[in-house]
């Protein structure tokens, strides 16, 4: 019977060390070991995107990564992006533009959108839709999600300009 292995993970800037079976999925390690329950479990087949986190600078679906593969990785979850008192621009924009209804897909939407805007700070609406194609929402019809991301992009860009 295969045994456990020592896993090191940096999550939201904090180092963690634990022992786990290699087959454990990253999303379960985040939720059940580290109590970071913002990354959700939806389809479990790599389609819906509710488990999206940033791992080593890439948006990944944490239900399709074994914790063993993530050993040594640097991970950012929704909890690392903002707090209720100090929301990320994207979180603020989703609230203002009603970019969610039930909210289940929202953590994945926001973690993915953050990476998208990092790579392309001035996307067209079409680029937002294409860049968000790995995240499903069954409530909103996407219209307000796209609106929220576009609004966050312009907010981030004006903040950048103001800073210069």
């Amino acid at each position, binding site marked *: 019977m295969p045994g456990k292995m020592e896993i090191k993970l940096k999550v939201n800037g904090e180092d963690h060390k634990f022992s786990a079976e290699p087959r454990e999925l990253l999303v379960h390690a985040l939720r059940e070991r580290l109590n970071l329950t913002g990354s959700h479990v939806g389809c479990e*087949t*790599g389609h819906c995107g509710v488990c*999206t986190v940033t791992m080593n600078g*890439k948006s990944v679906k944490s239900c399709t990564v074994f914790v063993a593969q993530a050993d040594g990785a640097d991970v950012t979850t929704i909890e690392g992006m903002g707090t209720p008192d100090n929301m990320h621009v994207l979180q603020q924009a989703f609230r203002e533009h009603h970019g969610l209804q039930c909210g289940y897909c929202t953590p994945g939407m926001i973690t993915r959108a953050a990476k998208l805007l990092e790579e392309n700070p001035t996307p067209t609406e079409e680029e937002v839709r294409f860049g968000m194609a*790995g995240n499903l929402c069954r409530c909103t019809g996407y219209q307000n999600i796209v609106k929220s991301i576009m609004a966050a992009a312009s907010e981030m860009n004006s903040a950048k300009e103001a800073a210069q």
Partner: protein
Amino acid sequence: MIPAAFDYYRPQDLDGVISLLQEHGDDARVIAGGHSLIPLMKLRMAEVPHLIDLQSITELFGIEVGSKIRIGAMATQSDIINDISLASAAPILKEASLQIADPQVRYMGTVGGNVANGDPGNDMPGLMQCLDASFLLRGPDGEREVKARDFYQGAYMTEREDDEVLVAVTFDAPKGGYAYEKQKRKIGDYATAAAAVIISKDGSVCKGASIAMTNLSDTPIFCTDASNSLVGTSVTADDIKKAVNEMIEAIDPAEDNRGPVEFKKHAASVVLTRAIKSAWERA
């Protein structure tokens, strides 16, 4: 969904990978991006007692672009999309990669995994046949090259031996026009039908053509007769129809949740017609 337990290895060089493969035979599998293998393991359609992760093997990464192009097995679809010199030397790779899965999957999905897995739904095998690419395989006795057009034997059955690793794909920079056309039910889905086409032109005459089809048989289908039928023509609507008819003779689709055989043949005709038109316009 939790897969069966396995032992995990992360060797630092290829010799380490090959000796693990020799030790464990077909109880071992290498994992690249894992986005084909992990879902199969979670569904318990694949059991892998010994999983060998390639993420630390630096020689498998990288894309080299010259008159000859070499793409390391661990290069991801996202790497391909963002490689500016590759996009200019062989733009069909970017065009096809953008039609694979979704952004998150493209960060993880690799060229090596896509071609070595032998899944008839994968897009890169047909594309590599269209490009007449070679696959470099490294085993205990060294390296050998197998043509993409000779690599696929059946669904998940390839020329690769159990103790070999696919380390890179190589091909000559393609000349002429190109197109990758894919019909799918939704973004992220495998193809109902897909066509890879490269056409070169001499004045207003087609000088060379290469056509390969995806997910229309248990292997990708390189369509020799359809390709040859275009050569010497001016690629008129009638010439395209002839090539499409030759392609229909070469494929062998099966009925599944993407539709009945007749529908798949129809979808194949549509994507190939579009791909030939577009490749000819770009030639």
